[in-house]
């Protein structure tokens, strides 16, 4: 019988990715690029919110967008009409992006003349929460029709985000969505999170969101 030995590894399965993510953040800091990872379920209004945001901020800062999807370039084509730099990332069946894919995406986008890069992650509330993309901050959109119980169902996603946009508040009268209860659930998971109710289609609340971005970009470049 061959002799064998037990090698203690004791490494977090995410360690590799976490390390790459930290390296990416260091590079972004040097290059003065603020990278935001935007996550949500499919249909929560990510692309609409993004289009409005670009329209409002593109005169103030140079914006670049990375659209991640399992397949198709529908969203990238929409964003391209806004006039900012955009590239499509295909995850090839994967349900999330990791730090390495994000790094490749940034290389494709070219960060030399970008102040504010946005990564539109795959529409999914589970897997993207597990993988640090290397973004400076994480944002998520929860829309009113999805229900105020989502923080209970996807606690990890809510606990890793720095800001939560509650979108489609213009349809609140038609849904049984309790903003205060939702906020309370979110704050319990993540006391530091900022919650901003918006309606990206009507523009309601969007100024608060723009202000959040301005502050973050400024602080990152200080």
């Amino acid at each position, binding site marked *: 019988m061959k002799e*064998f030995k*037990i090698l203690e590894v004791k490494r977090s*399965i995410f360690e*590799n990715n976490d390390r790459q993510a930290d390296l990416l953040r260091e590079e972004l800091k040097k290059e003065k690029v603020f990278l935001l990872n935007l996550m949500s379920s499919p249909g929560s209004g990510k692309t609409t919110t993004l289009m409005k945001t670009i329209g409002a901020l593109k005169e103030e800062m140079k914006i670049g967008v990375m659209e991640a999807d399992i397949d198709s370039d529908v969203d990238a084509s929409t964003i391209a009409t806004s006039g900012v730099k955009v590239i499509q990332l295909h995850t090839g069946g994967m*349900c*999330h992006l*990791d730090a390495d894919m994000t790094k490749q995406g940034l290389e494709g986008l070219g960060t030399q003349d970008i102040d504010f890069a946005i990564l539109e992650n795959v529409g999914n509330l*589970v*897997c993207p929460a*597990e993988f640090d993309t290397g973004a400076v901050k994480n944002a998520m959109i929860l829309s009113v029709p999805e229900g105020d119980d989502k923080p209970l169902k996807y606690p990890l996603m809510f606990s890793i985000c720095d800001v939560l946009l509650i979108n489609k508040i213009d349809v609140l009268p038609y849904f049984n969505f309790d903003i205060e209860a939702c906020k309370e659930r979110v704050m319990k998971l993540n006391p530091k999170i900022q919650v901003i109710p918006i309606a990206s289609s009507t523009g309601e609340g969007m100024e608060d969101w723009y202000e959040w971005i301005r502050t973050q970009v400024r602080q990152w470049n200080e």
Partner: protein
Amino acid sequence: MHELSICYTIVETLQEVVKENEIEEVEAIVLEIGELSSIVPKYMENCFPCAVDGTLFEKSKLTIEVVEGIGRCKRCGYSYRLLPVEGYCPNCDVKDFDVISGEEFIIKELICF
């Protein structure tokens, strides 16, 4: 899908480990997965052969040790397994706890020649 990419991540990490330790053959890979992590061990086992295909670990056995999800009640201090009672303390019926274990997601060890 999720489990598959995690398997790839594991293979990447392990490739570093075997290089650092100059290992040529790995008999078994032991993972420690907490039952509160969002990983389904059965799916991991199914995805594993795909991720190790063509690597040094092609013939390695995958062993998953599941760690129980234990919480301590913030109100009465009682420690209990969370899943069977959906997080509610069996002692005072309150769902307010600190997680003590069960979120692990670790490559524990390699059994190698």
